[in-house]
């Protein structure tokens, strides 16, 4: 049972985490990003579309569509995020409005396009792309260790990709010059500008990164929880990861802790209901566990919760 909690907790928590990292990039650069929900959906749409077409020609057993989906979901998310970047950086739109609008548009567009593609290319009325559940890996040897072994058992390939991406993202944000500039953009863009660095460019890149990482997360959800791509992907994971990153005080490592809390509390709840032999409606009650826990923790940890200083502010060179 503990094994199952760890396995399911990771497969839910890690995609949330990678999306939250994207959010951190964007928000630390000074761009409020409520668009994560839409970005993950739009990215996953592109990935699923590519995978679905590849599956027609390569057959259901090939692993190529899976990895292609991950790659294209990142590209798709990045491309769609440019719209948010364009609105916030170039058009100086209100960032909150832009984020919400991007979400609404993503839902409408992907739902519409999924239907059109299914009808035009496959001649059937369907509003989803069947993808199937991804293959899982078990590391021999390590997975035999009691309890901890579960971290190496039944892992989805996307979890490995996410961990690699997360480590790189952490390194770039905290150990490189670019990361330093990015963080400075969120705290004092005027100083960054005075140092001769292009604030707009850095912010735009940060938003694109958030799109790519959200796309990866969305694709992971599509391959694990739902086993297909449909509008069912918009159930609020994006908002949940925003909550995680604010809870994590806009820092990567504490955000990981928040995401794992969501992941493990979620899977523990499910296991609890099953173990106690309760009717399935009780799982709804158990499902509030992660959120109640978060609220309680927030009571203790919110004293020093500070957003990046210039978050949400439109950068205007002339303004001091």
């Amino acid at each position, binding site marked *: 049972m503990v094994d199952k909690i760890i396995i399911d907790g990771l497969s839910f928590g890690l995609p949330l985490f990678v999306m939250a990292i994207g959010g951190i990039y964007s928000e630390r650069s000074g761009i409020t990003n409520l668009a994560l929900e839409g970005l993950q959906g739009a990215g996953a749409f592109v990935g699923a579309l590519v995978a679905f077409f590849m599956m027609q020609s390569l057959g259901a057993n090939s692993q190529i569509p899976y990895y292609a989906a991950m790659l294209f979901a990142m590209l798709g998310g990045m491309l769609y995020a440019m719209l948010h970047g364009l609105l916030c950086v*170039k058009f100086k739109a209100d960032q909150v409005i832009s984020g919400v609008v991007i979400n609404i548009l993503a839902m409408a567009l992907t739902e*519409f396009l999924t239907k059109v593609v299914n009808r035009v290319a496959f001649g059937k009325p369907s509003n989803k792309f069947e993808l199937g559940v991804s293959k899982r890996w078990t590391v021999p040897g390590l997975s035999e260790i009691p309890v901890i072994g579960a971290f190496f058992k039944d892992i989805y390939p996307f979890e490995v990709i996410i961990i690699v991406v997360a480590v790189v993202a952490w390194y770039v944000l905290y150990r490189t010059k670019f990361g330093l500039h990015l963080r400075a953009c969120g705290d004092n863009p005027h100083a960054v500008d005075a140092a001769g660095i292009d604030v707009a460019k850095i912010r735009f890149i940060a938003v694109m990164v958030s799109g790519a990482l959200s796309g990866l997360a969305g694709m992971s959800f599509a391959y694990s929880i739902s086993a297909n791509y449909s509008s069912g992907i918009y159930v609020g994971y994006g908002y949940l990861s925003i*909550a995680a990153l604010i809870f994590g005080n806009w820092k990567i490592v504490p955000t990981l802790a928040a995401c794992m809390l969501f992941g493990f509390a979620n899977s523990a709840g499910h296991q609890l209901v099953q173990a106690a032999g309760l009717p399935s409606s009780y799982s*709804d009650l158990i499902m509030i566990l992660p959120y109640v826990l978060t609220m309680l923790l927030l009571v203790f940890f*919110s004293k020093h*919760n500070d957003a990046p200083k210039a978050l949400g502010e439109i950068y205007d060179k002339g303004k001091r």
Partner: protein
Amino acid sequence: MKKRKVNPLSRVFVKLLGNEKYQVITIPVFAILLSLVVGAAVIAALGKDPVSAYLNLLQGCGIWPKQKYAGGKSMLTDFFSFMNYWTPMIFASLAVAVALKAGLFNIGVSGQMLAAGFVSTILVGYSSLAAPIAKPLVIVVAIIVGGLVGAFIGWLKYKFNINEVVSSIMINYIIQYVVAFLINTKYVDPVSRQSTNVSDASRLTLMSTEIGGFKYDIPLGIVLAIIVAFVIKFVFDKTTFGYEIKTVGLNRKAAQYAGINVGRNMVTAMLISGALSGLAGATYYLGYFCSIQPKVLSSTGFDAIAVSLLGNSNPLGILLSSFLISIMGKGKTYMSSSAGLDAEIASVITGLILLFSACGAFIQYLVKRSKENIAEIEKANKAEVDK
């Protein structure tokens, strides 16, 4: 020197949008028209007639007459059912706007709607109270429940510095699951898998009321919604209380320095915002609908954020913007059946309207730049002539 010419297009552009006094209205209208044009292009690309598709949207809402009506129905029937759909959207958008005035972002409108709708349903909707008592009671209960949830979020922010976005999202989930649990264990209708229907006496919409041979679904909430919009406008424009909340929203530190009780104002603003969400919930779950689907948050609360911002967070602007967005939402069913278009295309156009409207500041900037450009060219030309 060669005489430079002004681009006639930019001259028209400036002529139409240049007057800064009217830009509050002209720019959003321009953005909306632009998105309708883009939407028309999309519809045309799908091989359908955009004009008739747009007319279908209006016809579905009873704003434009249909060719023929089924027995007992008229254009007014459609318009009443449109208003029924429109009402919760007004309340929800006002809820977002009030919180926004205090600098708070209420992303939990949907959750507050659900909490208020659910409690009113079980307390009043399932009772045998007569209509004159039940209907006002639904409204009172919804206001109290929504207000309490909202105030709780504000209090958490004030007392523990908990970011209202996070707490709203958490509370959304908690409400959603608890309500689903209670419905599934106690109040479920075994056929529809939703909560059992509320009594007609408690419902805020008078369904299938016959007047002069036609049947109407008369939404009582719409009257309240319009009154509330004007009251909020008055409170924010003319009272000390509204002024204080706006000051807190603009600059928390300055407000505190000026002796305004910031904490109390934040909690009050969230209380009002929550109460408005409660009204949205009552008119949604006990008006437009009469039951609750478990484990689903309505999208109204999220759309309301965009609608509110499209209306510039001004109550009267919100009446207009919610009217427009509701036409898209309500009319799409008729458009889809009549023109053979996917109903989703209406949502795409809604998205485009919101997208272009979000660029209002940029359009304003463009207008200003071309205005300066024209002035510069004309000045140069004049100097040339004078020489």
